């Protein structure tokens, strides 16, 4: 199972890099489809079947169709990109190095205490404060949809409501910035 998760994650990361690097917009969009699908598979592997379905329907389905449709409509030319100069290379290398360092130290259970970095045996590094409320068994017993709904309308009720306000603002902004005015026409 862990190996499978690793494979899915790697595919998601590779296709995400593809989104950024491919010169043709349509390839970027198709890479994004792969990324989104892989993330939905991750949900499935983590016992969140409902989120898997939602992710697939909304993102891989609806949103990506819109993307591809707009790309087909606008038919953009292949991008004329400047070659990577040394400054960009240094920046990329630095970000990659820090990211790898953080994740490798964390993966190997090295913790950072008062005496600097301390090595630990792999596996013994599990956090003393790692308490997730939802094990797979509990979720499956209650039902996926019920669990999501229960959370959505209790703990995350306020964020859920703020989202509606956020979407309204975004809609108003889109209308305002693209609206044709009498002066402009």
């Amino acid at each position, binding site marked *: 199972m862990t190996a499978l998760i690793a494979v899915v994650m790697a595919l998601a990361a590779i296709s995400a890099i593809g989104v950024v690097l491919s010169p043709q917009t349509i390839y970027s969009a198709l890479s994004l489809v792969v990324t989104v699908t892989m993330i939905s598979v991750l949900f499935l592997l983590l016992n969140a079947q409902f989120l898997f379905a939602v992710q697939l329907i909304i993102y891989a389905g609806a949103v990506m169709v819109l993307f591809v449709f707009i790309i087909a409509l606008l038919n953009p030319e292949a991008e004329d990109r400047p070659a990577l100069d040394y400054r960009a290379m240094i920046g990329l290398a630095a970000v990659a190095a820090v990211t790898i360092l953080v994740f490798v130290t964390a993966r190997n259970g090295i*913790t950072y205490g008062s005496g600097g970095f301390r090595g630990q045996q792999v596996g013994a590094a599990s956090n*003393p404060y790692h308490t997730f409320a939802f094990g797979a068994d509990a979720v499956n017993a209650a039902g996926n949809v*019920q669990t999501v709904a229960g959370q959505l309308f209790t703990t995350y009720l306020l*964020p859920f409501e703020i989202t509606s306000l*956020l979407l309204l603002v975004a809609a*108003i902004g889109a209308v305002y910035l693209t609206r044709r005015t009498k002066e402009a026409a």
Partner: protein
Amino acid sequence: MLAQAVPIVPLVTPSAKDLLGLLPELILGGGFVVLMLLDLVVPARRRAWLAAFAFLFIAASFGACMWGWFDSGSGRALYFGSIAYDKYAMFINAVLLISAALVVIISPQYLNRRGLHYGEYYALILAATTGMMLLAGAMSLMVIFLAIELLSVSLYILSGFSRHEERSQEAALKYLLLGGFASGFLLFGMALVYGETGHTQLQQIEAALRVSTNVDPLLLAGVILIFIGLAFKASLVPFHTWTPDVYQGAPTSVTTFMSVATKVAAFAVMVRVFTYTFPAVYAHWQAIVFLVAIASMLVGNIAALTQTSVKRMLAYSGIAQAGYILIGVAVSPSEPLGTIGVLYYLAAYAVTNIGAFAVITVMAGRGEDLDSYAGLRGLAYRRPYVAAAMGLFLLSLGGFPPTAGFFGKFFVFAAAIKSGQTSLALWGIATSAVSVFYYLRVALLMYQRPAADQPEYQWSRSTFGGSAVLLATTAGTLVLGILVTLVYSAAAAAQGALLPVAAG
């Protein structure tokens, strides 16, 4: 076979008391929707009515805040620990609402002159303020993120409000792209903190961190990424590069609003998250916050020296001011004066900076914004009171007694010295000395006779609203500089009741 559906969380609904605690935000959020509807029925020539309605909503929300401040039932987290109903949030809300009200009053005149008077403006100001107020009370990583997005999206639109002007478009796009990037950092940091602690509510995160002995590098990475995301909103060095361009490109009334309100909201949440939720790992984030504070003070003040645009100068000055405010966050979490200093500084900065920006908003002539230093030359001979007020605001920004800015700086430096971070206070004092140069340069310019061959800038006449705002900000700057105990005691009360700590 269907398994018996058992909800794994007891389904309790939030009580009506939760709604009452959220009243200031509800009034303003509702006002946002109502204003959009009113925009349909108000005739285009009467759009100033919308400003009046917006002002009424802000006043009502302010009233609700006052009620919340004196309500004995405050001091608890609402909506399952998602948002705080405490005096700290009410203090910040009051500062935000006063800022928003002042901006709304000076807007109609300015927008009419620029030909930008659309109803969306007031609705978006209310939406942004709602987001900022939610941020001030946010007790959950989810609410923090969504509130930041709410205020950011509103401000992206507002900074591009002058749609047909290239500089405004550039400002909006730059702000949108960099802001989206910063939000990515913030979200990634939140994901790491959630992954380490298993919680999104600050109360539980704080409790989880308190019992842990070892610190996982992933947690530290998360804490730092959250700091980066918030530092971007507060325009701290090295996440400040967008600030001068956006401040210059956005319509001046929008710049007035976002230069103050965004900073207030960002620091409000930074204090709650860093000083009161992550104190257990203070030793790990302290150095970074120190460096960012020093870098902001240095870069902001030195870059401001070379500017010739008032808006850019005030942008860099804002970066430097953010550095001073950050001192209050960087001092030890066990030192309450740090938080009190931040609150006092934010209140002082709000009135002073709105005053300074209000001068260039109200005095802006038809067409071109009042932006270059040359445009201020000789202001004192044509508009003596306005020039005197501007002089006072500049002195306050520079930190001269007896103005608001002096005591803001005094409290954060005192907190730094009290918690043994004398070097930080010294950096602050040295860079303040530098800042006096560019503030006074502008002040002196106003009192210089214009050169004979140079035409004077065509300043507008200040309207009743503009004069009222200048009068209010002048009074505020002096009150905060003379009747110090008034706001200090309020700030101390706000600090004393701050969640998640006060709840225990």
